[in-house]
Structures are given as C-alpha cells and as structure tokens.
C-alpha cells in the first residue's frame, strides 16, 4: 500500500529523533504508539510512520500479554481449562465459556438439556448487550468525551454484572457453563430480576442514541473515517460487527444454527459504508436485537434440569478425534479447535480469537488518515488484549 519508497537509515547525532529518509519528499517520523498508551485498551504497540500528521505505515506489535494459554490447555484436564477461557476476553467471559463447552460437547457427543440452552442464550445476549454498551462508551471516551458517556454505559453494565454475580458467583470470571449444561440453575427470582433489567435496557439505548447518534462531533469524527471495504474484510477473515458494518451479511447465529437460535426472531443489522459510524450504529442496533432475543427467551424458558445427569464433567477421555466449536461472540467468530488423542488432556487446543483477526486490517483502515483518527479506528475495532495475545 505504501507508495513512498522508504529507506530506513538512522541519522547521526544524539539530539534528533530517529527519522526515515524518503526520496526527496521530506522526512517520515517514526512513532511508537503504546504499549502504555491509554487508548490501546491494554498493552499493544503500533509502530507508526508519519508524514506530518498523515499515517503512511502502521505496524501492529502484539504479544505483551502472552500467557501461554494454548500450551497450558495441553497440560490440564478439559474441565480445568474452563476457568482459563474466562480470561481470554474478560469482558465477555460467558460467551467464551459457551464456545469452549460447545467444542468439548462436539468432541464427546454430549447433548444439552432444553433449559440450559435457554440459559445460555440469555447469558450470551446479556453479555453482548453489556459488551457493546461499554465498547461504545470507550469509543466516545477516545473521541474526547472524557468519562461521562463511559460512565453511563458502565451504569447499565453494572446491572448486568450484578445479574451475573448473583447467578454464577463472580462478576467477570463467571466459569459457569459445563459440558452438558450449566453449573447451577437460575431461580425464579433471578429470572424476574433479569426481566426487570431487560425491560430497562431500551430506555438506556434510547438515551444513548438521543445524545450520540445525531451529535455533530460524533458525525464529524466518525463518518467516512476508517473505511473497510467489504472485499478486503471478507478476504482478511474479519467477523462480527466489523464485517456487518461493511455490509456483509454474515452472522454465525444465522449461518451455523448452533444452540437454539433458530427459535428466536431477530434481524441482522448491516452497515453501508464500513466506516466508524456504521460500526457504532451496528452495535447500537445489535443491542436492540439482543433485547428482542432476551424478551423471547425469558418468556419461553421451560422448567427442567440444567445439567444432563449422565454427563461427566471430570476425568473423561474423549475418543481420538477433533472438533471445532464456534459461536457468534460479541466481537466476532470465536472458535475453539480441539484434538483429542484419548488422554484426559487435549492433544492440541487452539483458539480462533475474533479480536486478533479483526485487528489484522488495522493498517489498511488507517493509511492516509490522521494520527488522531488512528485512536478512533482502533477503538472501533473493539478488541480485548487478553484475547489478542492469549
């Protein structure tokens, strides 16, 4: 993409920043943005080459939060890996649990009771709502609205986290789903509390939209910035709200028919231009669709067991083979690939993280834009570094 023919040569002298000389078109400034930059949501570095304010090259540097996630999986049992999946994308631990449980259930051929399927859908959609709310809050924070929109988003998120805590015991590290169901049953009081939270969500989205969707600053900063073309998005394997904002109709809930999503009526919001504003709008609309799914699920949830009584959670040895379980996580396609060699530990465990793969198109979106827009474009990708680096 880079049209400038760049020679990397260090300039002699102690008092000058490192520069790259170009062929008579002036000098490029190399800036290491991060790893400790407040806008990088963690520890992530972007090596930028700047021509004035304009970005001519961007190199993402990963790995500051690498924790040997996949290697650990090969040394512990299938059950003991479940709490580690909470720590991948720590904003949405319940969807991580679900994807991993799905992969192991495919591996051992385990069925899930009806009520557990409903509980999984309810928790996944609550997770999606709170993830999108906080993502929009962070995006606004990076746009310069320091604090207030983020705190409004977090006020709503707290209510959902309270629900998680009273059901699973922990606010963020839920460790709730098991192979063949869920760990504990939801009481009628919990379901009533969930209905109350869901009933209050549309008012929050309305309030958010009233202030943001038509806001002059939001429109000026977001529209036409960081455009991702649909063909590039498909070729790069981008999934989730980012892909749909580019106008590609691909939602694994509709495509893969996992769980019981066939039973619910919901639409898949699509964008037109693939810019930051479309990504923001797709997320807002997805919260609204999630509320619709939640209302249907909370109305229809049947009684019954939440755990298959025949299911073994511990000490099982799957037959040699492989399985890939994937779900539509709030950030995109989250998949777990497992190979079993007949021992109690997986032979190979691989995560397909949506955050990392969505981040691969960052340079293509940022080239030619200003440094200030890089922060926004990066924020609109919606990543969690725990999942990028694993």
């Amino acid at each position, binding site marked *: 993409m880079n049209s400038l023919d760049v020679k990397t040569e260090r300039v002699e002298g102690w008092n000058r920043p490192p520069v790259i000389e170009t062929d008579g078109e002036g000098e490029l400034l190399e800036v290491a943005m991060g790893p400790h930059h407040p806008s990088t949501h963690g520890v992530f570095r972007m090596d930028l080459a700047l021509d004035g304010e304009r970005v001519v090259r961007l190199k993402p540097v990963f790995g500051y939060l690498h924790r040997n996630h996949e290697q650990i999986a090969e040394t512990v049992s299938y059950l003991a890996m479940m*709490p580690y999946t909470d720590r991948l994308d720590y904003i949405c631990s319940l969807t991580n649990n679900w994807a991993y449980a799905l992969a192991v259930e495919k591996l051992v051929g385990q069925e899930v009771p009806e009520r557990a399927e409903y509980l999984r859908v309810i928790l996944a959609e609550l997770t999606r709502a709170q993830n999108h709310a906080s993502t929009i809050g962070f995006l606004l924070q990076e746009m310069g609205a320091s604090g207030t929109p983020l705190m409004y988003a977090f006020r709503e998120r*707290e209510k959902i986290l*309270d629900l998680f805590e009273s059901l*699973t015991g922990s606010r963020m590290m839920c460790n709730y789903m098991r192979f063949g169901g869920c760990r504990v049953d939801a009481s009628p009081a919990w379901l009533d509390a969930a209905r109350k939270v869901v009933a209050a969500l549309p008012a929050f989205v309305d309030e958010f939209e009233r*202030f943001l969707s038509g806001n002059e*600053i939001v429109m000026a900063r977001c529209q036409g910035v960081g455009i991702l073309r649909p063909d590039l998005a498909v070729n790069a394997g981008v999934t989730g709200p980012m892909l749909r904002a580019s106008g590609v109709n691909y939602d694994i809930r509709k495509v893969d028919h996992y769980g019981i999503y066939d039973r619910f009526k919901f639409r898949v919001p699509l964008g037109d231009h693939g810019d930051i504003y479309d990504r923001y709008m797709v997320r807002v609309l997805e919260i609204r669709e999630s509320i619709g799914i939640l209302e249907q699920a909370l109305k229809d949830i049947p009684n019954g067991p939440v755990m298959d009584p025949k299911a073994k959670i*511990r000490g099982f040895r799957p037959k040699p083979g492989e399985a890939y379980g994937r779900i539509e996580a709030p950030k995109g396609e989250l998949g777990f690939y497992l190979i079993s060699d007949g021992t109690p530990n997986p032979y190979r465990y691989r995560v397909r993280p949506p955050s990392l793969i969505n981040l691969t198109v960052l340079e293509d979106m940022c080239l030619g834009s200003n440094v200030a827009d890089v922060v926004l474009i990066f924020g609109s990708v919606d990543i969690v570094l725990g999942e990028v680096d694993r």
Partner: protein
Amino acid sequence: MLGEGILKGLAETAKNFAGSFVSKERMTTVEYPEERLPLPEASRNFPFLVYDGSDWQAGLRCVACQICEKECPPKCIYIEKSKDKKPDYVGKLQIYPTKFDIDISVCMSCQICVEVCPFEAIKMNNEFELATDNRFGGLLLDRKELAKSNEYYHQIHPTEAAEVDARLAAEKAKAEAKAKAAADAAAAKAAGAPATPTPVAKPNEGERKS
C-alpha cells in the same frame, strides 16, 4: 443552533444530579468502607475447609484424597497425607491431611475444587478484604487458617449449606443402616444360622468412590 448540544447534555446532567436527591435508583455508587452492599449468596472468593463440631482438627471433613490438588487449574493447592487414620463424620476410619496449603495469591477463585470434592469438604468463602503487608507467607494459608466451622458455612451460603447437610445426613443414615445390617448378619452368623448371605449392602459399596 449553536450550542444546542451543550444545552441538551447539561439538561441530562442536571436531571441526574437533581434526581439523585430524590430517588435511590439514581445513586449508582455507595461510599464503600462506611457503606457496604450485601453480597449475593452465590458470591465466591477463596476456598476454605469445612469442619463439623467444635474442634477443627478432629472435625475436618477432608480425607486428603488429593482430587482437588490434581484438578486445580493454577495448581495452588498442596496436600500431604497422614500415615495414621482417624474416624470421619460417619465413624469410618479415614486418613487426613497433615498439610493442606492454599496459596491464595495464585488461586483464581474458579471453584473447580468445590465441584470435584466428593466429601463436601472444601467450599468457597466470600471474604474479600484480605490485603496483607506480608508478601511471602501472608497469602499462603495452612489448614488451620483454612478451617472454618459448618456454622460459618451456613452463615455465608444458607441454602447451599442446607442442601449439603441434607445430603450428608442421608449418606450417614445409609451408612448406619449398612453397618447395622452387617452387624445383624454377623450376629446371625455367630448364632449359627447362615440363612441369608446379606447381599443387601452391595449397591452402596461404590458410592463414596468418585
């Protein structure tokens, strides 16, 4: 109109500010050390060992089977088995842990140990103010610090504890019935009437194995 957005935003701020004096709902935070929100019953933090009765050493339910040590994802549990045996809550002779350490600076509060324990011996505490200025030994809890009474367990997780107690009582009754049947059979045998070879107790045999 110029400044319309500012006015709209400030109106919302004023609404929330004034509303916080009127309705409790709008107050989203509490002043923590003075004011505390009640923890939900399911809330969990770090594990503890349950004991019955008043003496923690005699009443410890743990039989040092080491399943939790094996399953613990970050491997923060260390157990040493005893050489001798002591009677457990049903009166059966069991080995016990001479050493049971949990390093709660490593523990990630996942409660896998609680789930895999076949003896209801380890449960989750909800105490969270555990800061200490001792960085080496302060967070390494031994079995004396980990031992908490069953009454304490009832206090923090009432419904769960009641279920556990009912399950243990049923198990104890079953074990007593089995012991009685065995004693009766032995008495009958001693009396010289080997009429019934007592296959009654068979199904319970594998019960305590996980």
